């Protein structure tokens, strides 16, 4: 595709802090290269704001290569913007054309309060992982990697679930602000592997309990989460979590 430059109008959510009511501000940016990433376009705008003595727009980012799960912008009515299977940092400006107006909002969910501008607090996800998204391993020498046989199909499915980067796009897209795609990916990843076996039952109940405590909604299987997931996590993970939860909850001794 040939290189081109564009002039754009940005409508960006600005909010000073958690308590501020916030609102949209409109910015014009010019001579944006079609080869820039979406975040580089924001860098250009922020540099201008800094030279003008204004407060730059806060946004989350880290690796900028689509694997860390930090970037989180709701662009023109879609988490991570118009491209499928793409994080905001990997969205490039060739997705837009000269004269476009782009509306950028933070993730919206009560469990993800806005910290500043486009930055939201996703520590709820960390607490869900802390509740059970791990395996307990004794210290000592590292065990040989191939000492426990793993079925190839299961290893592949577990790997596909483990690809979840915990960005929260599923929550942002869900009409109920449900985190079940994230939680189910993490539960599936460990439930499919023999290493996850010993804590299988307590893991799913503990993670769901924490998820409910954090104030996420419940899943109504609309499929919006799967559609926007930058790592294309399958919604079948949710059905697997439901089964894990059913077996765990109904076979419990107490």
């Amino acid at each position, binding site marked *: 595709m040939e290189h081109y430059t564009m002039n754009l109008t940005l409508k960006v*959510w600005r909010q000073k802090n958690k308590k501020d009511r916030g609102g949209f501000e409109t910015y014009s940016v010019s001579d944006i290269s079609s080869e820039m990433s979406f975040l580089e376009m924001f860098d250009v705008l922020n540099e201008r704001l800094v030279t003008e003595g204004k407060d730059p727009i806060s946004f989350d980012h880290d690796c900028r290569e689509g694997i860390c799960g930090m970037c989180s912008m709701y662009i023109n009515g879609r988490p991570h913007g118009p491209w499928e299977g793409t994080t905001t940092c990997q969205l490039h400006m060739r997705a837009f054309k000269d004269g476009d107006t782009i*509306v950028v909002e933070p993730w*919206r*969910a009560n469990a993800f309060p806005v910290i500043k501008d486009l930055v939201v607090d996703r520590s709820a996800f960390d607490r869900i992982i802390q509740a059970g998204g791990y395996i307990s391993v004794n210290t000592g020498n590292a065990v040989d990697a191939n000492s426990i046989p793993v079925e190839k199909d299961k290893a592949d499915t577990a790997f596909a679930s483990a690809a979840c980067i915990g960005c929260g796009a599923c929550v942002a897209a869900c*009409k109920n602000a449900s985190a079940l795609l994230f939680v189910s990916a993490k539960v599936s990843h460990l439930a499919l592997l023999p290493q996850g076996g010993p804590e299988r039952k307590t893991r799913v109940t503990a993670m769901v309990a924490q998820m409910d405590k954090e104030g996420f909604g*419940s*899943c*109504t299987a609309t499929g919006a989460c799967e559609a926007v997931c930058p790592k294309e996590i399958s919604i079948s993970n949710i059905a697997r979590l439901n089964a894990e939860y059913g077996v765990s909850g109904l076979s419990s001794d107490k």
Partner: protein
Amino acid sequence: MKWSEFFTSSVGKKFVMGLTGIFLILFLVVHVGINACMWAMDGGEMFNKAAHFMGATVVIRILEVGLFVGFFIHIIQGLVLTFQNRKKRSIGYQVPMGNAGSKWYSRSMGLLGTIVLIFLIIHWKQFWIPSRFTDMSEATYESGVPVHDLFGLMKDTFSQLWVVILYVVACISLAYHLLHGFQSAWRSLGLSNNRYLHLINAVGVGFSIIVPLAFAMMPISMYFDWVQ
């Protein structure tokens, strides 16, 4: 894990919705089957006898209590979930996602269910209450046992255009409610096997079209006097 913890968790609530949903789907099969007797073209004899059997058999009357419990749980839990879920995002988006990634009816289960509920209340008042509690005209066939003339009541009720329209609207709402609910219920119960999910999806689409269509044809065929 206590029972109460299981059934009050977000996943447990969906489990209950799925279970009661499948139970109500089974009821629809029975209901549409019994009602289809109205098309026997025998002046309603087979239909009235079938309805009499359903009303006079003690096992079915006991099952009816279970049916009401199923309805009650499904309706109350559904409404509670709809309102609770709505509160999880206090500030909405400037640009909504709309139909990108999800079907409108999958996001409108609360609304579609409420339309069906409103219909249900009117439907109970029109048919269930007269047949169980209040007086209605009887019909006697060769066995000599008088049975409720529900066929006559149907003819009478469905001579009014507004009732026919209401029933058709309710059937369309039911169709879309089932289109999402049929397959979603099985996922809520934990069915993740792709082979069975494909089967459930196909059966679900067929069921969601055929059953509501059959129900909708009942008032329509009565209104246009296609059945005698």
